[in-house]
């Protein structure tokens, strides 16, 4: 079917109607409506980077809060050892609530904290051994002990 052509007069009428009603000059691309979306829509590269950071952060949080509880017994033992060396009773130190809860299954909640005297171990005592021993209470059954005494006995001297 042959396509019909409009006369020049009709074309001019059509162009006048279209050009007269609508503005000819377009707004600059920076002033167009889509330009406002440019800041909101990140490029694929930035989107990938943001996704990586989000996944990493989620992993860190999951490991920190959802992982196995960390044993803290070594902290209490270290503090007890130091307090024994210094001479402060370890009972004055209060363990952390987490530690209490973690060891509650093994110990009684109201059990008294062991004093350093009750669990005194020779290796941890900072005082020398001779200062704790009263000189009068020692029996003289050790025959060789007189050689080590700083003062000679009066009986052996004469």
């Amino acid at each position, binding site marked *: 079917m042959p396509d019909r052509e409009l006369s020049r007069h009709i074309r001019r009428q059509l162009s006048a*109607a279209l050009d007269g009603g*609508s503005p000819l000059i377009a707004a600059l691309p920076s002033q167009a409506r889509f330009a406002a979306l440019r800041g909101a*829509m990140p490029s694929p590269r930035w989107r990938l980077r943001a996704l990586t950071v989000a996944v990493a952060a989620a992993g860190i949080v999951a490991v920190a809060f959802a992982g196995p509880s960390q044993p803290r017994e070594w902290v209490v033992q270290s503090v007890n050892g130091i307090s024994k060396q210094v001479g402060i009773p370890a009972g004055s130190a209060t363990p952390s609530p987490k530690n209490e809860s973690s060891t509650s299954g093994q110990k009684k909640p109201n059990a008294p904290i062991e004093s350093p005297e009750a669990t005194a171990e020779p290796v941890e005592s900072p005082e020398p051994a001779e200062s704790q021993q009263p000189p009068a209470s020692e029996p003289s059954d050790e025959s060789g002990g007189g050689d080590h005494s700083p003062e000679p006995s009066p009986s052996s001297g004469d």
Partner: protein
Amino acid sequence: MGAEGEATSAAMRPGNRDDFDRLYRENYPRLLRTLYAITGDAAAAEDCVQEAFVKAWRAWPRFRPERAPEGWLHQIAVNTAISYRRRAKLRSVGEILRRLGRPAAGRDPADAATTSDVIKALAALPPRVAADFVLRYHHGYNNREIARLEGVSERTVGTRLAQARDELSRRLGPDWRGKLPTSETEGVHFPRGRSGVSDA
């Protein structure tokens, strides 16, 4: 024109801002005229064109370079205008229902002054028919170029143009029916704002 259009299309990089800006500058006038014919309202046409470019910008990173970007934009713009017309029709129906029983409101004199009879007749056509008519007789595309732009057959374009001429001649006068091409009228084109569509 065809070679230039192909080069323009081939150079487009999806997601590239500068290329999209170029698309906007080259296609805005044509789309505005086309949508003006569809909507019959200059402000609505401008709003629809801006909205169409917003939609196109959102889809721009996923644009397939093998497709002509002008045709892609044309489809988005015409669909936006069709949606606008649907909403406008619903609004007018609602308005009629609200005003039922009241005295009929007179015509807005400002509307009558700014909208010509030609625009009103074009806006009364089906949207794609009006778009093809403007592309053919205002922007100077031939049927093959329009078919490529819209992704339809040339036969479809010819049918739409015949429908438009019949309807416009009924409303505006017999001159709008057009004449069969003669040696005098053949080859008369009014190229204005054409870009990006190759006549391969």
